[in-house]
Structures are given as structure tokens and as C-alpha cells.
């Protein structure tokens, strides 16, 4: 059944109001209201395979100042996997020194995506 979805784009702070049209098979036929190609991609993804970047933090040991090092999934992960990623990080501790971009967890929660540091801890 053809349908229309109204979304707010989260790809940048503009928060464009998107209209996504889907055909009977659930395939996206059009995305309108976006201001950039990223918005069009978000519209398509959000109705078919919504994804999110997960940002959180991990304890770090051996650093002179930091107690925590902030981390993110290197790329988006399926939205349905977000809490699996969080759960996989629970109980893990990083070892200083850590630099921005260092991979701290490979293939987190079976997503094929690495978790990388977003802050330095020396």
C-alpha cells in the first residue's frame, strides 16, 4: 500500500521537515523537503533501515587527568542495534594512552562497525 511519512531530518541542525513517499512494496519513490543530499539519504534510510551513530563514553585507566574517554561508532549502526552497542560497552575499560580515532572495540555487537575514541587520554 502506498504511503507517506513525515519526518524531521536529523542530519544537521537545520532539522528539515521531510516528506517521504513509499510505493506498495515499501520502496521509497520520493523524498522532498530536504535541503541537501544527506537529507534525501536520511529520508530513505529512516523509512527502510533507520540508522544512528552511537556516542557514549568508557572509563580509561592510566591517564594523568581523564577518568573517561568519549567514544562513538565509527559509522552509523542500525537503530535497532543501539542498545546492543551500549550493552556491549558496559564493563569495558580503555587503557591510556588513547588518541582520537583509536579503535577501542572492533565490530561492536556484531554490527561490523568499530567503536573509536573521540577524545584523547594521555
Amino acid at each position, binding site marked *: 500500500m502506498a504511503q507517506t511519512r513525515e519526518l524531521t531530518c536529523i542530519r544537521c541542525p537545520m532539522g528539515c521537515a521531510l516528506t517521504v513517499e513509499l510505493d506498495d512494496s515499501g520502496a521509497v519513490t520520493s523524498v522532498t523537503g530536504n535541503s541537501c543530499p544527506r537529507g534525501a539519504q536520511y529520508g530513505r534510510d529512516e523509512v527502510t533501515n533507520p540508522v544512528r551513530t552511537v556516542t*557514549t563514553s568508557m572509563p580509561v585507566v592510566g591517564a594523568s587527568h581523564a577518568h573517561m574517554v568519549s567514544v562513538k561508532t565509527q559509522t552509523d549502526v542500525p537503530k535497532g542495534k543501539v542498545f546492543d552497542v551500549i550493552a556491549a560497552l558496559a564493563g569495558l575499560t580503555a587503557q591510556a594512552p588513547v588518541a582520537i580515532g583509536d579503535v577501542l572495540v572492533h565490530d561492536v555487537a556484531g554490527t561490523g562497525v568499530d567503536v573509536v575514541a573521540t577524545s584523547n587520554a594521555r
Partner: protein
Amino acid sequence: MGNSIEKRAIVIVGGGPAGLAAAVAAHEAGERDVLILERDTQLGGILNQCIHNGFGLHTFHEELTGPEYAARYVAQVDELGIERRLGTMVLDISEDRVVTAVSATDGITRIQAGAVILAMGCRERPRGALAIPGYRPAGIYSAGTAQRLVNIEGQLPGREVVILGSGDIGLIMARRMTFEGAHVQCVAEIMPYSGGLKRNIVQCLDDFGIPLLLSHTVVDIEGRDRVEAVTIAEVDERMKPIPGTERRYPCDTLLLSVGLLPENELSREAGVELSGVTRGPVVNERLETSVPGVFACGNVLHVHDLVDFVSQEAAAAGRSAAAYVARGEDAAAQRVDIVATDGVRYTVPAYLSGSDLDQDVTLRFRVGGVFRDRYVSVYLDDERVRHAKKRILTPGEMEQVVIKADQLRERAPHTVTVKLEEE
């Protein structure tokens, strides 16, 4: 210590995003004698605890987290060899730009600055400022304090959470607390619209089924030692609680995201004129305050939503300060006031100095309500020179409009007016 006074060309008060961008721009404009004074033990300011992503799309054309965005600027500051003093709190700025600071390493120091750039940022409005009735137990935090506890210290302020105010930090913390194992029951917002960005409502509340209660506020806080419950009520159009709409939420934590205030105690003591609307300095197109040689940028000037625009604004302040040091004080020129009216609450800058307007002027502003399908118009005296349609304007999102330098030169207006128009 003692009575010796160090001399520096540009002293930047604050090493957050504004201070860093100002320093880089001042250096690039040719001024090599730049000193950053930062009260924290590292550069980057509040970005260090803003570990979520969404920063840098304008500046770096990619989506970065706060610490990553800060690190890009810190790397530039390092590369340019710009001096910084950490753990250094500025105590006083005199009208003739003597900056007095204190630190554990140097004690009290005095610096005569050729130009000063104010980049102290802002602070959160606390619970007390709202005069919410009830007890004063542990477990009431401003969202930014909770953000520091969680993101920097790794500590969980509470497990059952209610959030008052839908400012961006509050929305971001709803998601952060959820990720760290807390349960966020709702976000109450006294206004009929959110104070934060729409994307944050989607990705921080909607994603987790956290309700946003518009036109609601906290009317009671229970718990003598630790928060035990809060009562939330709906408010009428005068923002008064409506009797009979109260609902009690048992919880152990109340987070507040009810507004940010530019931190201008130093500016005030330096004699800088402050705006009653923004609570930041009144500046001209060079971002110079009422005290010659003292410039302001970033959240100390007016609260921004996006760090990218802070960086842009701060770079302009850095260039202006460098020019001021190189050229000295400008001769007093006819001041051109900028009138903000018809839905436009204020503009930064608030006036044009009127002398050699050789560059386009970016006016940043906020509106006083939610407006749909309005035009943002700029008039030079009676002539409309800008007329741009916006689908939606809200108080939570800063707007900007650019006036071309050649138009200003040609028309030499006495007054500039910025307003919203229906057509």
C-alpha cells in the same frame, strides 16, 4: 608577581570554541602576540563534555563530536604556537585593559593587553532562578552539571529522572542518561514550543519514547535529603499552573535545562555596556564592546545553538582585535543603530560603527515566538534590501542575515531595521 605588568597584544579570556577560533584568526590576520587564558586544565571549554555528534558540518563539512571539534582547533593553536595558560582564572579587566588573573602555577599576574577578547561563554540558569517551590534535596542538577558528571567523571547522578526544560543540553542528557542506564520519564517545557533543536527532539526523545510535555512545569519538589518525587502541572497562556492538572512523578533526579545566561560579570566590572535582551555586551559590526579595544564573541556575547557559528563569529572578533592592535582606535564615527522589531528580539551586532564598512555584515538574531512562512526583511532607512522567506522561525533557533558592504556604502543609512514580515 609583584607590581610588574606584562604587556601582550591580544589577551583572550577563555579557551573554549570562541577563544580558540578568535586566537587562530587573530594569528592568521598577522598578530603573533596572542595569549589565551583558560580556567580549566585543558582547552576546549564546554565542548569537552559535549561528547555527542552534530558539530562541525559548516566548519569542517563532516559530523564531529564536541571533543573532536575542539581538538581540530587545539591542533591549529598548537601548530601556530599560540601561547595559552591553563588553570588560570581572570579576576578583573580594567577599562584600560589591564587583565588580572590567578593560577596555582603563577599566583596573581597582571597583563596590559593591547586588545582583549571576551570569550567566557555562558552558564546555566539554576533551579533557584525559577523559584520552584518545594524542598532542596540532593538530586537536582542543571543538565550541564549532569553532563559533566556522566561524561567526564563517569558518575550517574540518578536512575529515575525527570527533566524540566527542553533546551538542547536537557534533550541531549535525556539520551545520555538513557544510554547510561537511567530511566527518563519525561521532559516538561513551560513554553508551548521546545527551546531546543528539532533534530534533538527526534533523536534524543522520540527515539526512546520519552514524552515532551509542552506548556507544563514543575510545581513541587519532594524529598528532604534526596529527590523523591516532583509534581508537574500544565500551565495556561500566562504560564501559571492550571489547578487540577497536577501529576506526581516519583523520581530521584530532576535535571534542569531552562536557559543559558552569558557569563558577563567580568565584562560588567570592566564597564562594558550589556544588553538587557541578550545579557551580553552591546557590540558593533567589529564585535567591539562599548569599551574600546575590548571585543566579545561566542556565548558570552549571545547564546548560540551551533558551535560552527560561534567559531565564525569568534574568527571575526579575532580579526577585528588584530586590526585594532595594528591600527589603533578608530576616530568616533556616526553610529548607525540597528532596530530589531516585529518579532525580531535583538540583533548582534546591535549597531554599526559607521566607519569604513568594507566588509559584509552578518546579523545574527533570535525571534520572540514561533512564526510560520514569514519573510526576514532588512531595511536601510526606508529601503528594503533583503527579503528572504523562512518556512518556520522559532526562539530556539538562531537566525542570520547578511547585509552587503556595497549596499551599506552606497546608501549610508542612518538606521538599519530587521523585522519579520508576512509578505
